[in-house]
């Protein structure tokens, strides 16, 4: 077990969070994975969990390198790309569709969950993950993805400087207002019900004091709190 108080942003932690999030899903579920660390969830989901990309595919498979010399034989560089513009191989039975259909899947409640990264999460279920001062990119599909049935945040518990990311009130422009359903950090799992934050699981190697000391957001310890959870 790796102890990583403070920054905690190691590859092992990212893989561990991905493993824990993957356990939310069962065969037949359709999930959208944000660019970056959430993409790791795909490596750990059960057979039959389908990955959706908002530019028009359910059944996203192995991600390929743009510089892979074998790509033209397996797929074309442009034919199957994910939300980050990276080529991938569709799995057998995959389906492709327009952007309009893709967002109908998201908004219409046909997507089981979306997994997103975060800059800040607030105790009432707000998310800020699209805008940093001086680095303006646009929100892309993040605000629309928050209309999904389940909105799961995958984030390190603290910033690189060791400051809490789970706070009373977001200071950055919001991606969604009160729509989060779960937060998974390398230390704990939280759920939101009626815009209140509940601590549901503490990972092996951490304890309630550690979570309290590193979380600014007010949270309720769930009656069925699980401790020593192996991610």
């Amino acid at each position, binding site marked *: 077990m790796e102890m990583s108080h403070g920054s905690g942003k190691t590859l092992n932690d990212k893989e561990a969070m991905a493993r824990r999030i993957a356990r939310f899903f069962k065969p037949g579920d359709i999930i959208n994975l944000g660019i970056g660390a959430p993409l790791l969830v795909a490596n750990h989901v059960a057979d039959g969990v389908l990955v959706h990309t908002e530019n028009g595919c359910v059944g996203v498979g192995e991600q390929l390198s743009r510089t892979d010399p074998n790509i033209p034989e397996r797929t074309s560089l*442009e034919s199957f790309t994910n939300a980050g513009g990276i080529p991938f191989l569709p799995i057998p039975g995959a389906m492709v569709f327009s952007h309009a259909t893709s967002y109908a899947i998201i908004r219409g409640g046909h997507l089981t969950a979306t997994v997103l990264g975060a800059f800040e999460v607030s105790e009432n279920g707000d998310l800020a993950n699209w805008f940093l001062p001086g680095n*303006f990119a646009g929100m892309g599909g993040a605000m629309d993805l928050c209309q999904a049935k389940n909105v799961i945040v995958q984030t390190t518990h603290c910033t690189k400087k060791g400051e809490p990311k789970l706070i009373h009130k977001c200071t950055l422009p919001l991606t969604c207002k009160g729509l989060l359903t779960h937060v998974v950090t390398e230390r704990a799992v939280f759920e939101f019900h009626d815009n209140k934050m509940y601590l549901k699981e503490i990972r092996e190697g951490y304890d309630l004091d550690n979570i309290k000391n590193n979380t600014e957001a007010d949270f309720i310890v769930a009656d069925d709190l699980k401790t020593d959870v192996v991610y």
Partner: protein
Amino acid sequence: MMKNKLASKEEIMSKFFDGMTLMVGGFACAGVPRELIELVIESGVKDIKLISNDAGDPNVAQGRFYHEGIVAECWHSHVGLNKEFGELAKEGKFKLHITPQGTLVEKIRCGGVGAGGILLRAGMGTGCDFTKERQVVNVDGKDWFIETPLHADVALVRARRADLFGNLTYRGTMENYNSTMAMAADCTIVQADQICDIEEIQMDTVRTPGVFVDMILDEQRRYI
């Protein structure tokens, strides 16, 4: 006898004009009608109003328009991959309307299907700048933004195959905005990887009916 919509570069360029509203299909440089973008630039038009998912990469795909300095106003959902765009935006070279992706495509769809708008919620309660320009209505106890239609003078569409009438198919994730934009312009122009005869595309597989298509670039090209 079905109408043959193949058009020369010159015929296509004659449809472009200063200040036109232009939709361009594609997502993150995939499924972009790059040949047609070059024709817009070659035609010498300026002050275009550009509607597309993103601003491409620097001097690549939709980024060509910014590199050439011919954009006056634009609607995008994401512009983070084009550093050149960021610098020009800071200088105030054009007016930018940043819009959530699913909302952007629905605004375009409204423009294509004769709808006066659609009620959506992306961004509700965030207080972000774009939400302040929106009218809010309450339906059955829930707040919604009134999202108004976007319509274009010209749409540039990238297809996998086009028959001579403009029935289109797409490949993989390259359909993205293309089929929606094809409906939403006065003049829809197609660049296809393969051009084929009437009946060569099985009618059950057509994704964009040719009724939405006005012109097809008359050049057989194959993109890898």
